[in-house]
């Protein structure tokens, strides 16, 4: 207990300093929220591998170290070239460096049709947006269940704010970029708590690309939370690209809530960080909602990435299709845990989940755990997972057509990724992610 208290106490102390300084201008509801969240964090403490949800992932590299908030702006700031390299196109973008919004690298927040994409800090200050944030912020994320989401909420200060009003269609993908410099502060390595809120109202359409990237091989911790609210009949695609630095540590949570007849495509590409944990909690909260959860993790060296997904069918007549593929080379370790909950009364649920893992070395490891919790009787739920090396029959088939073993292996490995890429609907985004995958697989 004392040890846990020690580890959390540092953050509680940091929080008190934070609450005294920068956070004073915040509205009362936000100050209360933060207070509640830090209290919850210190109750929960950092998770250990003794907890079922964390049995394959040790957060010791985070819990045993000391990460501090970055107070001053970075100098020099990353340049436009760094941003261009990470963006899909030349559309609207919101850029953060070590958790701070950088207007010079971002486009103006106002978009066509009254839509907005800017900093959450600014949204919290202004009238109409402030009301919206109050309605949605921390309403979708279950921060009470997670020490990391609680800590993010306690230090909630800035991140992306995206609002697409009813019936508005965003013409171009909107890009949110969180860069980590990997530079340490005066008290050692730093932590940032990016917080994003994406609200897409009734009948609106949007494509959002979230990119998390490291700019160096320094040690840092990024503790992100994204909330996505999808209104009735809205259609949203969210792409999340994780390219943190080789010694970066990333804990992230994506929470989505969908209303009636809405569509959400949530695509995940995990490439970076020494240690990454991504929790996705998706709630289908209106009849006729459809969710595609489509993820790919490509890991090598000693990388560890853990994806925990919970799909919550809270209403009848919803469909969720989940596909996660992993390609694990060298000593990499991939973890997938996929839980599907079908609530009482959520009849006619159609849910499918697959997780396939390709092991490219004998030292690579994958743990895959599907979990179904079904409390309704008229449902269609299937799941399946595989872990294994390259299929010898496929290899032989390709060789029998003249391909060298190396070329055949490379094609089969790429196929694992391409299967996921093929489900990405936006052509420009897919093409960019395809390039990243090809570059990674060599």
């Amino acid at each position: 207990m004392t040890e846990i208290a020690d580890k959390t106490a540092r953050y509680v102390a940091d929080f008190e300093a934070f609450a005294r300084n920068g956070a004073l201008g915040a509205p009362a509801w936000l100050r209360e929220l933060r207070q509640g969240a830090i209290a919850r964090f210190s109750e929960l403490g950092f998770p250990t591998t003794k907890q079922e949800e964390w049995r394959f992932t040790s957060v010791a590299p985070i819990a045993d170290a000391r990460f501090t908030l970055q107070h001053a702006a970075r100098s020099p700031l990353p340049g436009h070239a760094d941003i261009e390299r990470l963006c899909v196109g030349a559309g609207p973008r919101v850029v953060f460096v070590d958790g701070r919004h950088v207007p010079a690298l971002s486009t103006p927040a106002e978009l066509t049709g009254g839509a907005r994409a800017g900093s959450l800090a600014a949204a919290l200050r202004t009238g109409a947006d402030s009301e919206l944030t109050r309605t949605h912020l921390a309403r979708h994320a279950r921060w009470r269940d997670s020490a990391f989401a609680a800590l993010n909420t306690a230090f909630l200060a800035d991140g992306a704010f995206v609002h697409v009003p009813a019936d508005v269609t965003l013409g171009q993908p909107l890009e949110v970029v969180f860069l980590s410099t990997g530079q340490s502060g005066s008290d050692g390595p730093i932590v940032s708590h990016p917080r994003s809120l994406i609200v897409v109202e009734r009948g609106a359409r949007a494509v959002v690309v979230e990119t998390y990237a490291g700019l160096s091989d320094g040690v840092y911790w990024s503790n992100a939370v994204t909330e996505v609210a999808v209104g009735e009949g809205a259609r949203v695609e969210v792409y999340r690209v994780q390219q943190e630095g080789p010694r970066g540590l990333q804990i992230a949570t994506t929470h989505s809530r969908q209303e009636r007849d809405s569509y959400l495509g949530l695509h995940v590409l995990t490439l970076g960080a020494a240690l990454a944990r991504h929790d996705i909690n998706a709630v289908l909260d209106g009849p006729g909602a459809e969710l595609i959860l489509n993820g790919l993790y490509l890991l090598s060296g000693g990388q560890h990435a853990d994806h925990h997904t919970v799909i919550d069918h809270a209403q009848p007549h919803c469909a969720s299709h989940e596909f996660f593929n992993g390609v694990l080379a060298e000593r990499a370790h991939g973890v997938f845990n996929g839980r599907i909950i079908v609530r009482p009364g959520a009849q006619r649920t159609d849910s499918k989940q697959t997780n396939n893992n390709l092991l490219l070395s004998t030292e690579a490891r994958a743990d895959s755990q599907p979990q179904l919790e079904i409390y309704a009787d008229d449902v269609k739920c299937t799941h399946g997972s595989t872990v294994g090396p390259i299929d010898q029959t496929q290899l032989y088939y390709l060789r029998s057509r003249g391909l060298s073993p190396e070329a055949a292996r490379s094609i089969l490995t790429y196929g694992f990724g391409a299967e996921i890429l093929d489900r990405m609907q936006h052509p420009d985004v897919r093409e960019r992610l395809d390039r990243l995958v090809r570059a990674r697989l060599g």
Partner: protein
Amino acid sequence: MSKSKHPLLQVKNLHATAEGREILKGVDLTVNTGEVHAIMGPNGSGKSTLAQVLAGHPAYAVTAGQVLYEGKDLLAMPPEERAREGVFLAFQYPVAIRGITNAYFLRSAVNAIRKHRGDEELGPVEFMDALDEKLKAIGWDSSYLTRPVNDGFSGGEKKRNEILQLAVLDPKLAILDETDSGLDIDALKTVARTVDKLRRPDNATVLVTHYYRILTHIEPDLVHVLAGGKIVKSGGKELALELEEKGYDWLREEAVVA
């Protein structure tokens, strides 16, 4: 190379095992250029094993005998080299590969072979142009090219896909392992027509089949019966008709008596 008929494939006393069990027990077979051979036989006689051994399937071990292809030691070549030298096996059970489009797969195969021959590799556009006619021949539109290799294909579609590969890769020695099984009559005709069109004086085809049916569309020069891991009888196309009428049992008896 000489235009006159010469041996393309010479199988001599071939013995092969799978998981330690001997399946081929001394196969002898010579296929000359310009010829079509049919290999028939009951289930479990070793027909598919023979086809797979010729293509280089790693699950089979050759324990004795020799195979010469254009006078070269075929068994010493890895599967990809056999393919590049012009050997093609149409699989009885074509393999599905998710995530890879048929077009990409076909182009990779064509280019691997072109590169080996010293020809320039084809880009995506040139390749599609070259493919157009072959696609039409098997009655397909280009939608089959953007689908993942054999993934979600019906049995008949998989077989057609093998024949498309055959047409695109234009091998010297084509071995068709029960390509006719499970095909409806229209598909069978399409397959047979495509194979027939590829016949030239400098190439050869080996049809491994269970049924007489396909031989009414592709006329073989020689018919062999494989039983118990050996070729027990060879003859002209009339042998196929005899088998169709009498089955295989009489051959087993004949073999025992002999």
